[in-house]
């Protein structure tokens, strides 16, 4: 398929592919089994100038957009989505500063992320606020020059590893969703600690931890946007980041399919390579077609966002939903082509199968994506009737 990438985008793909082949693929099994955070690989990604792809040049970035970013995420994900989510969560953590920060906040926080010398994370979810983000119970109370944060965020990607956190907390509980605000919280702030690292089914190279706030003193200057804008910040951030999750899906599916096709040419049963059996061929045909369809939707969405279209919630939800469902289907079929060998740790599809599941859960479950898409479609229909 000709995707009309610019020369620079081709370079991004080439570089990311090199990093994936030379650094991620050889290490992924060990990172997974021993649950090692990929600090070294992230450092190499930063040295290759890929941390700041979506950050403006004025703040030390490359000055690209979502398209440039997802090309890198897709390639890394072909190797390991535990690594790629650790990379991508930086964008989720810092985009609120990029989109809603003051000039001072941008100057202060963006350059270090663009250079990859610091990591970022985004803290929205709590024990009682998952899909229903409106149930956030963490509070932020203004006292003098500080907001005092109390509460616990749960399952935060890059938690403990990151230096800069965007955190959603209630400044006015009585107002419900309109009473939430977004804050930049730095690691090391008094009263800010971390829970233990979660033991997970997949993406085990990534770090998922609780963020614990106990009378945590956050300077007033770290409020993002205005009081009450917390949910707008969170929702805009998720709309903007979902293509990144779709890219994880496309990349993972691509890696699983490539492994399965290669294996099917080598494995001989009944005197023939198993790729000669139509049952396997049809699996391959379906995988190849659906991956390409997911990629088309993803690239079109990324370009829609980069074109400056204002409302892209629906497109962003669609590409996340479709690409991550495809990833799960492909991981499943790829493992099936491997047969019993696929169930063993020595082949990469076992890990891909475990890893794929998270894609249907985080950044909004796929049920929630369907809600968003359906509501948008119904709203549009109602508008036409008027």
């Amino acid at each position: 398929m000709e995707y009309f990438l610019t020369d620079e985008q081709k370079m991004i793909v080439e570089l990311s592919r090199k990093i994936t082949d030379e650094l991620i693929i050889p290490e992924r099994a060990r990172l997974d089994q021993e649950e090692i955070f990929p600090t070294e690989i992230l450092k190499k990604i930063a040295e290759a100038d890929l941390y700041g792809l979506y950050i403006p040049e004025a703040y030390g970035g490359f000055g690209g957009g979502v398209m440039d970013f997802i090309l890198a995420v897709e390639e890394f994900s072909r190797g390991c989505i535990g690594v790629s989510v650790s990379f991508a969560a930086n964008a989720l953590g810092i985009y609120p500063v990029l989109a809603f920060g003051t000039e001072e906040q941008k100057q202060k926080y963006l350059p270090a992320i663009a250079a990859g010398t610091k990591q970022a994370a985004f803290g929205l979810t709590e024990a009682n606020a998952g899909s229903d983000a409106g149930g956030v119970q963490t509070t932020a109370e203004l006292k003098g020059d500080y907001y005092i944060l109390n509460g616990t965020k749960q399952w935060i990607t890059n938690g403990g590893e990151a230096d800069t956190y965007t955190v959603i907390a209630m400044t006015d509980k009585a107002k419900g969703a309109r009473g939430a605000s977004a804050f930049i919280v730095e690691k090391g702030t008094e009263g800010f600690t971390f829970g233990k690292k979660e033991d997970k089914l997949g993406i085990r190279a990534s770090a998922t931890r609780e963020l614990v706030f106990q009378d945590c003193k956050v300077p007033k200057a770290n409020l993002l946007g205005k009081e009450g804008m917390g949910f707008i910040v969170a929702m805009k951030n998720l709309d903007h980041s979902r293509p990144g999750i779709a890219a994880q899906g496309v990349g993972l599916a691509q890696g699983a399919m490539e492994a399965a096709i290669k294996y099917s040419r080598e494995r001989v049963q009944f005197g023939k390579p198993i790729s000669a059996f139509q049952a396997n061929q049809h699996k391959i045909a379906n995988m190849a077609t659906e991956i390409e369809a997911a990629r088309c939707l993803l690239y079109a969405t990324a370009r829609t966002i980069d074109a400056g279209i204002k409302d892209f919630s629906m497109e962003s939800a669609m590409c996340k939903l479709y690409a991550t469902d495809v990833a799960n289907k492909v991981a499943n079929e790829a493992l099936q082509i491997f047969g019993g060998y696929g169930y063993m740790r020595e082949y990469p599809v076992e890990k891909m199968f475990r890893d794929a599941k998270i894609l249907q859960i985080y950044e909004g479950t796929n049920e929630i994506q369907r809600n968003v898409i359906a509501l948008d479609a119904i709203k549009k229909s109602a508008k036409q009737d008027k």
Partner: protein
Amino acid sequence: MNIAVCIKQVPDSDKVTIDRETNRLNRTGVPSVINPFDENAIELGLQLKDKYGGKVTVITMGPPQAEQALRDCIAVGADDAYLITDRKFAGADTWATSYTLSLAVQKAGNFDVVLFGKQAIDGDTAQVGPGVAYFMDIPVITYVKEAEKTDKGFKVKRVTEEGYQVWEVDGQAAFTVVKEANTMRLPSLKGKMRAKSATITTWGADDIGVEEEKIGLKGSPTIVRKVFSPPIKTNRETIQNEDPKQSVKELLGKLKERKLI
């Protein structure tokens, strides 16, 4: 510090296939890469630049398509690149190659150090580094693993079969660099963008002022009498630790592993 690195473009040995009919190497269509050992020379050059400042200049003698290897060097951080190319250079042996390169290096700048790979993976002679140094009349240290600047020149670690030697050299010098020295860094996006638009200076025979009878086939006195594989030396391994107890433990482990005890 002004650093020159001589690099050679070679066929990617991972991608060379053998023609099943003729049992010959299929060279056509095989992608070319920077000679793997030259990557170590480039990295050493870049590390010296990181540490002491200055510039890394890469030079290759080869056909016009060798330009790509030079651009790949710029992508990892080289500053300037020279392509030495002329039909007249064709058929050069190591003597003529060294002569030609030595003139190019001298014309390209006044370098504190000229770096080479240990050997080229296609020619494999390991002669060009010392050859260039000979023609430039500067000292050469082969099999270098580490190098640092001193007041007057350099202090280097040189790998030998027994371990390593430490050498000091005054003034301008040439080193050939071993694989153990380092791993070449990855290119960066900014580097790749610079590589794409960088100007590569191209010089022919007339530009570097060669004596015609010393270049190409005419200037190549080597006659190949016989090609053979030298007897294989048995693998030697040195076990060296701060604590001799640890060395004994490792030795016993290895002997047990081979079922010798």
